[in-house]
Structures are given as C-alpha cells and as structure tokens.
C-alpha cells in the first residue's frame, strides 16, 4: 500500500505544467441531428409511451443504460430519426434492446420526438452549457494516462477500476463545462450509478463502496475490494451517502491542463465506445 502511495506522490511531484498554446473556444458539442421539429403534443405523447415502454430500462432521464445514453441526442447505431424509429421497432440483436413492434411507426415517432426534446445533460440533473476553454486533446491524453493519474482509476472501454466510471463515450454524453466541473469539483454532481456509500457496523468497522441498491432494510454495494456486499441496516450503527472519492484537480492542474484533459475527454465519443 505504502509503495503505491509513494509512487503516486513521486509521479505527482514530477508533474510538469505544459504551457498552453493553441486554445479554442467551444460551446455545446455540435449537437443534435434533429431532422424534424416536433409538436409539443407529439412530445407529450412520446413521453407517455416512453414511460410505458422505455423507462423500465432507460430510466427517467434516458441515461440508465451504460453506453446507451438517450439524452445526448447522439446514437451509435442511428444517425437519422428514421433510423431511430426502425431501431426501436426491431430492437438490437445480441444486446438488451428488445423489439417494440407492437407500436406503430407513428407511435414510435412520438418517442423519438420525446428523446429529441430531452435536455442533453448526459445524465446530470442540470445542463451545464457555459462556454469554456477547450485545450489540446493530445496533451490531455498524455496527462490522463500520465501525471494526472486519471487512468489509475478510470478505464476507457475497460482497464480501470470497477468502482470508477469507465469513460468510454463520455465525450458524447457530457458538455465541456460539465466535464470541467467534474474535474475541478468532482462532488458537485455525481451520476446515480456512480455514487458512494459508507456504512459502519455495530463494532465501528467501516466499509465504503459504490452503491448498487438500497431499500428501507438493506443496502448493496461494491466494496473497496470490488466485492459485492450486502448489509442489513439493523446491523449497522450508521450508513449514508458519501462524497465523491475523486480528488479535486483545482490546485493540481493548471487551467490550461484542465482544458487539455477536457479536450481529450471530448474525443471519447460514443462512436469510439465498444
């Protein structure tokens, strides 16, 4: 344990601030390939059909399925609305997406209308569309895999910790400002599937981990050893959510370096996710 910490501290000491050069400004990612404008009534109809047919898997905000975030306006397997309608009706073989062929094309079109109207929050409750500085993605990638130590925890299409979110597709799912905020202030807003929980048993033994499930009487987590564990609340002295275990990079990386990492994360699009 000690040696790992020493190693990390050494690496942090060696972290070199790279002077910024070519910066550009960007707003929201190029966005939403919407071909039609939809009437509010269609969107409302679609909301109802979404709630009846889609919400069970995709969640209230369209972001409950990893790798298939519906709230981004970008779809790996569909570029047009007609593609989307076909995909919803036929399902995607060999994936969890079943066919929905009991709905008419017109009904499915209203679901697409609803999806197109979802705020592109990438699963965050709020949409952060502030314009921010976007740096150099190559330098960002070097920082990500090197001195900033991001890759110690975060995998991209696998490779990180199971406790930490895999960042494949993050560039399609989140706005630049929201990515920047997560780097500078990781606890500001944490997606539902990434929240941490802490329990203390009656002897004071503490366990922390990623929250997987909870109810009035029990809680299920992946603990720090990446094992699946369950606790009865009656056998705990305390339990509750904890903040993000990710450190803030506010005083670690320069603003230019943060912009580089954001630029790199924006290259991790759904198209490149496996």
């Amino acid at each position, binding site marked *: 344990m000690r040696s*790992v910490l020493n190693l990390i501290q050494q690496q942090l000491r060696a*972290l070199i601030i790279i002077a910024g050069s070519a910066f550009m400004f960007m707003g929201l990612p190029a966005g939403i390939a919407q071909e039609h404008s939809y009437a509010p009534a269609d969107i409302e109809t679609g909301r109802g059909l979404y709630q009846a047919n889609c919400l069970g898997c995709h969640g209230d905000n369209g972001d409950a399925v990893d790798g298939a975030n519906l709230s981004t306006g970008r779809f790996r397997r569909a570029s047009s609305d007609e593609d989307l309608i076909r995909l919803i009706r036929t399902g995607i*073989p060999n994936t969890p997406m079943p066919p929905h062929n009991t709905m008419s094309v017109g009904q499915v079109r209203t679901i697409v209308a609803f999806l197109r109207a979802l705020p592109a929050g990438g699963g965050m409750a709020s949409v952060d569309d502030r314009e921010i500085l976007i740096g150099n993605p190559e330098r960002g990638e070097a920082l990500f895999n090197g001195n900033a130590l991001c890759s110690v925890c975060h995998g991209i299409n696998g490779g990180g910790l199971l406790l930490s979110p895999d960042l494949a597709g993050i560039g399609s799912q989140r706005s630049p400002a929201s990515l920047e905020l997560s780097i500078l202030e990781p606890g500001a807003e944490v997606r539902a599937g990434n929240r941490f929980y802490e329990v203390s048993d009656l002897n004071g033994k503490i366990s922390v981990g990623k929250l997987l499930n909870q*109810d009035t009487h029990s809680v299920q987590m992946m603990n*720090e050893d990446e094992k699946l564990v369950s606790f009865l609340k009656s056998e705990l002295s305390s339990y509750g959510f904890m903040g993000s275990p990710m450190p803030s990079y506010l005083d670690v990386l320069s603003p230019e370096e943060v912009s580089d990492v954001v630029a790199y994360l924006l290259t991790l699009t759904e198209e490149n996710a496996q």
Partner: protein
Amino acid sequence: MIRMTITPKLFILLSAALVWANANAQISPERLLNADQEPQNWLMYSGDYDSHRHSTLDQITPENVSELKLEWIYQVRSRAGAAEKFEATPLVVDGVMYTVSPPNDVVALDPLTGRVFWTYSYSPSPEARVCCGRVNRGVAIHDNTLFMGAIDGHLLAIDARSGALKWDVEVGPASLGYALTLAPLVIGNKVIVGPAGGEYGIRGYIVAYDVETGEQLWRFNTVPGPGEAGFESWEDPEQEAWRTGGGSIWTTGSYDPELNLTYWGVGNPGPDWNGDSRPGDNLYTDSVVALNADTGELAWHYQFTPHDEMDYDATQIPVLVDLNWQGQDRKVMLWANRNGLFYVIDRVTGEFLLGKPFVEVNWMDGFDAAGRPNQVLAPTEEGTFIMPNNQGATNWYSPSYSPVTGLFYIPSWMDTYSVYTKREVEYEPGRQFVGAFPTMAMPALGVRPTNVRLPEEGYGAIQAFDPQSGEMVWRFEMTNVTDSGVLTTASNVLFAGGREGSFYALDARDGTMLWRQSLGGQVASGPMSYEIDGRQYIAVSAGAGLFVYSLPQ
C-alpha cells in the same frame, strides 16, 4: 507546484487499485474440483462434478424441516411478456447468488435478502427459435467470470463483480435453430457447451472455449461427418442424413478429474419421429459420450436408444458414483433415461452393467450382452401405442444421488404413453424437422390450471432406486407429473416439486412427506442449498419466482 492531497477517499480507491491489480482468482479450477468441500456455496449447476445434486449441509433435518419459513422471493420480469418456465438453478459464490431470469438476463442477488446487486440484460436475436420455451438453466463460473448460453446460440462471458460483458461468441446460427439453454460446464480453462435444436435439423456438437478469450479449443461432433468414427452408423445411400442429424446438447455434463473424462448426454436424431431417411444406429444420438476434457477426443460411448424414432433423447444429467459393484470397487454412472430404463454403466470403459425399466416400458423387451436393447415397437403409418410417452419417463429434470442412503432419486412420469404415427418429413432450413407429433394424454409442456386426468393417463412420482439391484426402494406418487429436479441433503431430507406448484420435503430414506408449500407456479427447476453465517437455505425457482427458505432464527 503540484499540491495534490491524498484524501482518505482517494486512498481507499488507490488501495482498491492495488487490490485489483493483485486480485486472486475468485473461483479457481481447484475450487471447482473440490466444490463438495465448500457446501456453503453452490458452484455449478449440479453442485459438483459428480452431479449428485446432494448437499452435505445438515442443519435442516427430517425433524425440523416442517418449521421451514420463507425468507424471500425474487420475481423475474420478462420484457417480452409473461415469464416462460423458470428453469435455472442459481449459483451461490462467496456471498453472492447468480441466476438467469428467462430468457437471458443474468442477475446477481444478495442471498440473504434477495436484493439485486446488478442485472445483465441480453435480448436474444429475434431469429432465435426454440422448440420448448425461451428457457435457461443457469450460469457457470470461472475466476470472476460468469458464462451464460443464450437462446440465440450465443455464449456470453460476464464479469461476476460488475455485470459487464467480457466476450460473446456465436456457438451456432440462431436462424437454423441452434440455441443454448443449458448451464455451461467449466473445467480448468475451458467452458463447455453444446447447442439445443434437435427439432430443427441441426447437426450437434460439444464445444470447449477458452474462458479468458472465447477462443474455440476443441469441438466434438455428436453427429460424425465423413471420415469421423461413427459415420458408418448413418447408412442412407445418399450420405446426406448426417447433415441434419440432430444430436443436440441441452443438459450440463459431468466430469471425473481422475480419468479426465467429461460425460455428456446427447439428444435425439433428426427428424424425430420418422427415421426412414436416416437408416442405421445414428451415432451418437441418444448416447452418453465420454470425452477427454483436454482434447474433446471420444474415449467411449454407450447408445441408449439406437435409431430412435420416439424422441427419447439422452439429455439427462450423468450421475457419477463410486461403489462396490458385485464385490468389485467400480467407477460407475447412474442414468435414468427418457426411454424408461435405469442404467448402471462403467464410466471408465463404457461397459453396460445393468438396465431395468423404472416405469412401464413396452418398446423393448430386453438387452443383449453388450447392452443393446431389443426393440419391439416403432412408429408406423397406422400409429403405434408406445410406453413411455414422447416426453419420456424422465427428461432433463435433475436426479439426485445420496451417498448417505446410497439411493438414486428419479423424477418420474409414470404410466405415460403416446401413439406414434409416421409421416413424410422434409428439411427446410430454420423450420421444425420432426414428423407427426405423437399424441399424448399428458401435456408435454403446457401446464393447465386444472387437472381432471385419470390415473391411467399418467401421473408423477419421485422414485428411489437401489443402484446395486436396479430395484425400486420407495415411490412418492403425485397426481400430476413433474418437471422438478431433486435435491438431497446429508441429513436425509429430499426436496422436489410438482407441476401444480407444490414444493415439498420427503424423508430420503422412505419417502415420507415431511413438509410442503404451494408456490403458485410450476416447479421446473432443480432445487439447491447454501449456507450463510451458519444458516442453511434451500432455494428453488418456480413459476416466475425464486423462493428461498430457512429455519427460523
């Protein structure tokens, strides 16, 4: 310049990184070899490689079993409509339960509360076609990886901790009827499966994949092709019948590590009910095959029903027992076959040692010295009355062997019959390739809410047989037939269930009814047992629920 604070939370994550980097294999090959040494877990479909479906846990006894109380129910949800038969036996691995919600959703559950850790949802290709329900019998585990066969012919490797997909291979094309319904078997670095599809004119095989990569390591064709041993048993002059010869695999095999042989029961030849286009014995259909686990090479085979025209496929669980056979210690295999006969076979050589009916049988009247049945009835154009019926005297339902009582327990369909009629049949890719469906007084699959049948139209039983004599020791009779497996425990409690939804405990020594519950949906799965914090639990899938029982604290 750099001022990063190592917070306690970050410390925890970094520690986890270290643990992760040095993670030991959770379920090593050695643990699977010694699965009977950790009765708190249930590490494979039949409990251990001998496939006894016997738990050495003994907290629940004939004296206290009547106090069993329901701990929790997990209800499966089907996105495609009502759940079809829930046939999976769950695994319990170091405090986590894994099962498959039909058709192909893997669920990780807390075995104490039934609460969900994660779900891996898989939508099989719409091209999937299965004769007898969109079912799955459970997962296998190696290290931190679960393996699930899907009804569209895919085999999936899933991370047991996160529920993330690791790899996915196509074992056989769904459009031609290849489907996986069995729980895979893991031996060493191999995960072994075979495709169902005996009603679609598949050509079957048993195939081993590398657990890490999904790369195919060996394949044994259950219907040999030109140049392969056994091909001579396909005697049609055109030499075409083997291409659609069946030989499906849909129940899990067993394994003897000393002999390094893995044993698998092979399904019916195709087409099912008219064998005119496939003269010959049609090896290795309706056989047990013993394969070298490293190479897939055939060591021996025994064919229960040569040139089968009654759909008596040998898809039962091979039960491996070491016993003193007529004064000699022998490694044998006990096998109650769908064709109505109970067999004892030497599992070193494949030698036939004993064969006796365990229900009414009229299609054969004895064996020759090599164990070949003397068949006296077969389907005809006018129709032939044959016992047992097409669904068989037993089927995929797991039997149990108790080393404590020395008895072999068979879920049995008693006094059933079919009228088999021969009809022309032609192969069309992806369509059923069967012939005329035999008539049956007993519904093969469908469960009706009411039962008004006469006893002579068939009934169910759990039968206890003495492997030494092949004689019945006791029989527990049920008004309806059963698709339930049998679990026995070291404390002489036997658990099984019925189509009408009852789940019950019998005394394994004499068949006395000790306890019963109505679960409100048919028991079509094998029960299992596990232990957490010193308490023994019994789990069974029934209807659309997984039910878990234990004694009051």
